[in-house]
C-alpha cells in the first residue's frame, strides 16, 4: 500500500515562488523490528529515494534512510519557470517506483 498525494497549484505566474507538497502513505519498515510471534527480523522496506522533475529537469531530490518515520512528507519552494508537468518518483526498496504527476499552467 503506497498511495501518493501531491499538491501543486494549477495556475501560477512565471517567476512566482510556490510551495509544493507531497506525502506518500508508506509503512517505512525499518528492518530493525522483530515479529513478536516468530522472533524473526522483519525485512527492511522503506522508500529510499524521492526524485521530482519538472518537464524532465530535476528540481528536487532526497535520499531517505531507516529513521524516517512512516508516511514521509516533503515540501519545498519552487520558482515557476513556465507551464509544464511536475512528476514525483518514489523508489521503494526492491526497486519498485511509484509515480504521481500534476500539471502546472503558468501565465
Amino acid at each position, binding site marked *: *500500500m503506497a*498511495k501518493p*498525494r501531491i*499538491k501543486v497549484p494549477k495556475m501560477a505566474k512565471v517567476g512566482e515562488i510556490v510551495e509544493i*507538497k507531497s*506525502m506518500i*502513505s508508506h509503512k*517505512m519498515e525499518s528492518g530493525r523490528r522483530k515479529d513478536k510471534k516468530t522472533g524473526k527480523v522483519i525485512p527492511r522496506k522503506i522508500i529510499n529515494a524521492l526524485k521530482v522533475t519538472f518537464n524532465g529537469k530535476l528540481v528536487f531530490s532526497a535520499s531517505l534512510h531507516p529513521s524516517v*518515520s*512512516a*508516511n514521509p*512528507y516533503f515540501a519545498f519552494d519552487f520558482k515557476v519557470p513556465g507551464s509544464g508537468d511536475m512528476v514525483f518518483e518514489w523508489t521503494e526498496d526492491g526497486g519498485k517506483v511509484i509515480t504521481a504527476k500534476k500539471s502546472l499552467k503558468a501565465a
Partner: protein
Amino acid sequence: MTPISGIKMMKKMIKLTVGVLLLAGFSTSAVLAADGKSEAVKPAAEFGLDEIWSGYHFAKKETQALQDDDFDNPGNLWLEEGAALWSKVDGDAKKSCQSCHNDASKSMKGVATRYPVYYAPRKKLINIEQRINLCRTEQMKAKPWKWKSKQLLAMAVYVNNQSKGMPVNIRITAENKPFWEKGKAFYYKRRGQLDMSCAHCHEKYYGKHIRSNVLSQGHINGFPTYRLKWQKPGSVHRRFKGCNKQVRAKPYGLGSDEYNNLELYVKWRGNGLPVETPAVRN
C-alpha cells in the same frame, strides 16, 4: 556608561519587558479563540472539571498545525481510503455501505456526536467500529474487519469525520444510564501497580507534565486520532489499553464491554467539544 544612565536603561528595559509580556499574553489568547477548537467549554452537568478543553489545546503548536492543514494531516490518508471503501461492494449480499446509506455526508452526519449507543439485540453498548462490523456481517454478509486493520480504521475515520465541527452530544437515557454508571465507576477506580485511576491524570493534573508529555483532559472528540507515536490512526480502545498499561494494570480487550462503557462516559465528559476526526496528537 555612567551609573545613572545605567539605572535609567534598566528601568526602560523593565517597562519594555512588561509591555512585551502583556502583548504576548494578549496575542496567544486571541489566537486560541480564532481557530475555534481551543476554546474552553462549560460543562453542562456537574463533574470534576470546571472547564472542558479539547486535547488540541494541550498539543504542541507544530502538532496543531499538522492537524489544521488538510494536506499535511496524515490522518487524511485514512480518510481518503475510507471514502473509497464506502462505495466498494463486498460480501455475499453484493452490497456496499453506499447501497443502504447513500451519501455519507448526509446519512453519517452527527453519528459521531452520539455514539456509543445502546444496541437492543445485544442488550449492551456498541461503538462505531462495532456498528460498522455489524453492518458488514448482517447486511453485507461480509467478513468483519479486524480491530486494528487498515480498513476498519479508515472507515471509522471516514464516518467520524462526517460530523467534524459538530459538538459532541451524548444524552443519558434510561437505556444507557446503567452503562454510563459502570463507565463512571471504571473512570474513578484505582487500578494497576501504580494504583491510579483515570481521574488522577486527566482530572486532577491535566495541563501538567508527565515526564516530557503534557497531560490532557482525556477527551475523545478527535478519535480515531493519528498519533505520531503510532504513525497511524488508532481507536479509542487502543488508547484506553495504552493508558491501562501505563499504570501497570492488565488492560481489557479491544471492543470489550468495559471499554465501551468507559467510552460512553468519557465521551459524555466531553459534551460540547467539536468532533475533530482525524485529530493529530503526539
